């Protein structure tokens, strides 16, 4: 296989609707190929019925399509069992279930949890809500001087014997790829349960949860060319079985009497309410689409985009680059010296360059870096070198306006 950018781009109808924009906010959400939209449209127009409940044949067809989607995800992650794939509404919802579910069965007062300095709020705030009041202590792996995960400090912190280690696969603010194989190996050797936040990592590389031996892995559909409102909480059976359900209601119960209910088996026990059926089917279509692409060529293309953009930024005076160009999944975060990132982003918006400015739901990272925030340029497989060059020109125009 080879990489044909124009053929790839033509599969994304969004771009023909907005030919004058350059979309570099891909870490926020990706656009969807036509096959994903078609699969969802087919579900609603021809397959729609509620799953697992109704007695009729139409429901059985819908259930078959819905469970086939779960199998697609299980195969994609190389999970041992389909029931290890729990549908969520996204990574944030997955973390809320996971953290709530661990309190008691896994974590006791006095236990420690270890996260990193560059976690998204989804891997921080649920710990604040559910774990800290319960008497669990949260520790943090510091950054190295070049804003990477500090493995040496990590090894030291593992001596505190954290029960759970929860780390991002790829930093959403900087794009840096974390040394996840090493993190998992060291954490497991120290006896910890290991959670990886795959929201930004899953689109970068194929994840084999068994080879990696990770205990939990979470991601969102919309950051994998799929729809919004669907996500995955993967967990090893033995750990998923420990989790207390966060949400109670339909489908997650076995029996209910007035004073007591007993819970259903995995995966349904953790999936209360009518699930996002079209979302699951759309996500499976996105995965099947992705598996038909040349993933190595996609990675190489994204790396080339980042390196070209990074080199161009180095030619613009007064830009301060927070990301490094290597071991990077497609993000360049930067600031204009002494200026607010929101101002720079506004001047790019005027030139129809879509970027994000601010703290990117990772405020503790920016506190550690001692900057107000950053402007984040995030690249996807469908971006072109021409877009990189036009963005650099727009960036130079914006920077020049500050110089007055």
């Amino acid at each position, binding site marked *: 296989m080879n990489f044909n950018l124009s053929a790839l781009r033509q599969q994304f109808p969004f771009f023909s609707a907005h030919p004058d924009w350059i979309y570099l906010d891909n870490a926020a959400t990706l656009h969807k190929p036509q096959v994903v939209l078609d699969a969802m449209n087919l579900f609603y127009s021809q397959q729609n019925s509620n799953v697992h409940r109704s007695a009729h044949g139409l429901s059985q067809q819908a259930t078959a399509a819905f469970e086939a989607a779960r199998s697609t995800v299980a195969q994609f992650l190389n999970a041992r069992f389909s029931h290890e794939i729990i549908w969520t509404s996204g990574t944030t919802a997955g973390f809320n279930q996971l953290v709530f579910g661990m309190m008691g069965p896994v974590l006791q007062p006095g236990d420690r949890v270890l996260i990193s300095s560059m976690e998204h709020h989804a891997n921080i705030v649920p710990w604040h809500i559910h774990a800290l009041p319960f008497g669990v202590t949260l520790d943090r792996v510091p950054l190295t001087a070049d804003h990477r995960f500090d493995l040496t400090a990590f090894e030291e912190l593992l001596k505190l014997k954290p029960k759970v280690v929860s780390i991002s696969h790829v930093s959403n603010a900087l794009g840096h790829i974390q040394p996840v194989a090493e993190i998992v190996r060291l954490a497991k050797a120290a006896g910890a349960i290991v959670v990886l936040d795959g929201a930004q990592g899953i689109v970068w590389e194929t994840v084999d949860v068994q080879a990696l031996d990770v205990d939990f892995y979470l991601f969102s559909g919309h950051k994998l060319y799929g729809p919004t409102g669907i996500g995955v909480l993967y967990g090893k059976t033995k750990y998923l079985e420990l989790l207390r359900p966060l949400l109670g209601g339909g489908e997650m119960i076995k029996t209910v009497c007035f004073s007591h209910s007993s819970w259903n088996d995995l995966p349904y026990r953790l999936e209360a309410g009518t699930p996002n059926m079209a979302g699951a089917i759309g996500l499976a279509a996105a995965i099947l689409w992705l598996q038909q692409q040349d993933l190595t060529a996609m990675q190489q293309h994204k790396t080339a985009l980042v390196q070209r953009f990074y080199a161009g930024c180095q030619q613009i005076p007064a830009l301060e680059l927070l990301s490094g160009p290597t071991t990077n999944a497609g993000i360049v975060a930067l600031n204009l010296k002494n*200026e607010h990132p*929101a*101002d720079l982003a*506004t*001047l790019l918006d*005027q030139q129809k360059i879509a970027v994000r*400015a601010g703290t990117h739901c990772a405020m503790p990272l920016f506190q550690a870096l001692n900057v107000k925030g950053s402007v984040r340029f995030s690249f996807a497989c469908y971006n072109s070198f021409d877009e990189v060059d036009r963005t650099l020109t727009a960036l130079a*125009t914006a920077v020049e*306006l500050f110089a*007055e």
Partner: protein
Amino acid sequence: MIRPDIFTETATALKTIYDNQLPQLRQLKDWQSKYRILMTLGKELPAFDSEWHRDEFLVQGCESKAWLLHYQDPVTNQHFWAFDSDARIVKGLIILLLVQLNGLKAEELAHAKPELLLSELQLQQNISQSRSNGLQAVLNKIKAVM
């Protein structure tokens, strides 16, 4: 302590901008020239004491930060403002609101439509709901004194 002079000095600066830079902005067509002026408007304002960068003056809802001070003249009932922001464009936009609103009485504020100037200058996209710059929050806070 809030130095009372800050309100008179801000009023003078806003008057200068209203007389000098606003007519220029109205004539300009290209976005670069407009934003170039917008980003320098803040330089006209009197120095805002860093001691006033306090949470009680901070306007909620801003990706960038804005601090807003208020004073009502007990004799004339006019409302006066002084402010600061850590982002240049937001600062310039707040100035464009305040050149219209500073010194108004409550009943005048009720009828003011400061967004119209931003539309005229084609800067209205900065005050839309989807913007995280907090300009709408600043405007709400000003109007909340009524």
